[in-house]
């Protein structure tokens, strides 16, 4: 395209290259520039490695915290007992009424299981557990009620509470009790952790943005002379900035890989300590590593940070460099 000489064809158009070939060349060209930028990183190893390490480690912290939160959520999920609903049956209810209620509850889709603890069973358990064994035998009759232990399908506190409300309306149910406090507390803690991770991630990621942007700025300044020459022979800003954007891209790819490796290593290192804790609670808890989606998102996020950080710098500084003249 020539602004001044309308008849003067130039570049690819002058060569009469077919549209398909130009389309292919576009990718070949970008691929080449991507490789060239990778080579450029290789030529300035110190600055590149420092930036990649900072990017990688800054991403490691949120990534690891995310994995911990994910695992904590899994633990809280395994404590489904917390959402058990205890239905205390009226003394007046007959064994038949209790049986029919169990049948009804078993048929309910919101309930995964129902366990019946009869008065007698409850008394035995209480005698064993409380240590009042001898004293209790002085009681003339059994003061404990029949209890139905209902396990809801949805252990989410609000859902469990709704179910409890519904069940307490049953005629033979004296009252229903849900051990919610503990579950809500755990969920609140996990929620707090999640928000903390989010806030820390946000802070770190914006720091990363500035670090990448600054590295690219230094790189632009060190190539000032070259950029001036390119502008003098007719390079557009878009042409000049492309290699720098690719540099940011590589920062992202390599930093993301580093973050992945370090957070996996951290998790592996913590595995021993975590399994000791979970053994104490006799849970068959398996620590979960990063899955493919999480891996891809961390790489994608890192690349995004690299490219955006680079773009912030490139936009301002390449425009600002103007050749001083012949």
């Amino acid at each position, binding site marked *: *395209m*020539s*602004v*001044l*000489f309308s008849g*003067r064809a*130039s*570049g*690819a158009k002058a*060569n009469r290259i077919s549209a398909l070939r130009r389309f292919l*060349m576009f990718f*070949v*060209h970008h691929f080449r520039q991507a490789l060239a930028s990778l080579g450029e990183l290789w030529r300035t190893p110190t600055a590149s490695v420092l930036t990649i390490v900072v990017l990688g480690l800054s991403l490691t912290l949120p990534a690891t915290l995310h994995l911990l939160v994910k695992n904590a959520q899994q633990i809280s999920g395994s404590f489904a007992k917390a959402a058990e609903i205890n239905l205390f049956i009226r003394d007046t209810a007959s064994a038949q009424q209790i049986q029919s209620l169990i049948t009804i509850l078993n048929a309910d889709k919101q309930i995964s299981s129902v366990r019946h603890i009869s008065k007698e069973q409850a008394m035995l358990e209480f005698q064993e557990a409380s240590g009042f064994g001898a004293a209790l035998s002085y009681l003339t009759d059994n003061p404990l009620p029949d209890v139905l232990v209902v396990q809801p399908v949805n252990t989410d506190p609000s859902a469990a509470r709704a179910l409890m409300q519904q069940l307490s309306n049953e005629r033979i149910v004296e009252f229903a009790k849900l051990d919610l406090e503990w579950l809500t507390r755990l969920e609140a803690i996990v929620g707090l952790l999640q928000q903390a991770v989010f806030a820390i991630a946000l802070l770190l990621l914006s720091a990363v943005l500035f670090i990448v942007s600054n590295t690219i700025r230094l790189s632009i300044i060190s190539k000032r002379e*070259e950029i*001036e*020459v*390119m*502008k*003098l*022979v*007719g*390079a*557009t800003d878009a*042409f000049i900035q492309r290699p720098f954007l690719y540099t940011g891209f590589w920062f992202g790819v390599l930093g993301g890989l580093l973050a992945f490796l370090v957070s996996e290593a951290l998790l592996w290192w913590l595995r021993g300590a975590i399994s000791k804790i979970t053994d104490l609670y006799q849970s068959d808890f398996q620590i979960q590593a990063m899955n493919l989606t999480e891996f891809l998102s961390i790489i994608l996020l890192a690349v995004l940070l690299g490219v955006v950080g680079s773009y912030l710098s490139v936009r301002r500084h390449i425009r600002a460099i*103007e*050749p*001083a*003249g*012949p």
Partner: protein
Amino acid sequence: MLQFDQVSKTYPGGFVALERINFRIAKGEMVFLTGHSGAGKSTILKLISMIERPSTGRVMINNIDLSRLKRSQVPYVRRDVGIIFQNHRLLMNHTVFDNVALPLVIEGFTGKEMVKRVHAALDKVGLLDKQRCLPETLSGGEQQRVGIARAVVNKPPLLLADEPTGNLDPELSRDIMQVFEAFNQVGVSVLVATHDLGLIARMRYRTLTLKQGKMINDGLMPLQEPV
């Protein structure tokens, strides 16, 4: 081809570099631009290559007023004007071939067509055998010729040269001027800024003379009139 129409340029701070300059250069014409340093030679070249914009007046290339062009169009103007710099302005960590290929790469040339053109340009300045060298291993005259090859590789209709023979001995200067004449003969308009009056006297081309921002002579220099 190139036209200055009442062009003045005042730099920030009030220094008047050019004062109501008028001249035209026809297509395929070769013209010298001379004057003492500070007379405004560089400013004229800067206005043509859109490094600076005029304070008043119009600079026209091919009847298009440069002041009407947007910032984003500046690179495209520079592709139509080959510029040769006094200090060469080569990319020192790239080979001669890469330096000459740069304008073509910018325009989107690739592969064989690019190689063909680069070789043709290097051949014209006699540096085909040095294409794999780095510029710093070349002499001053050779670097200057690399700069010329880069300026002409995309066949611009207008060629500007700023002191192209600045630090060269007379023999080399003559060689370089012959290269310019060769381009001029194939229809390229050439504007050479120089203070080498001996060179101007020998070559006998139209000469624009500047003094303190004013045009004091347009035509053959008086001292070179035939006896």
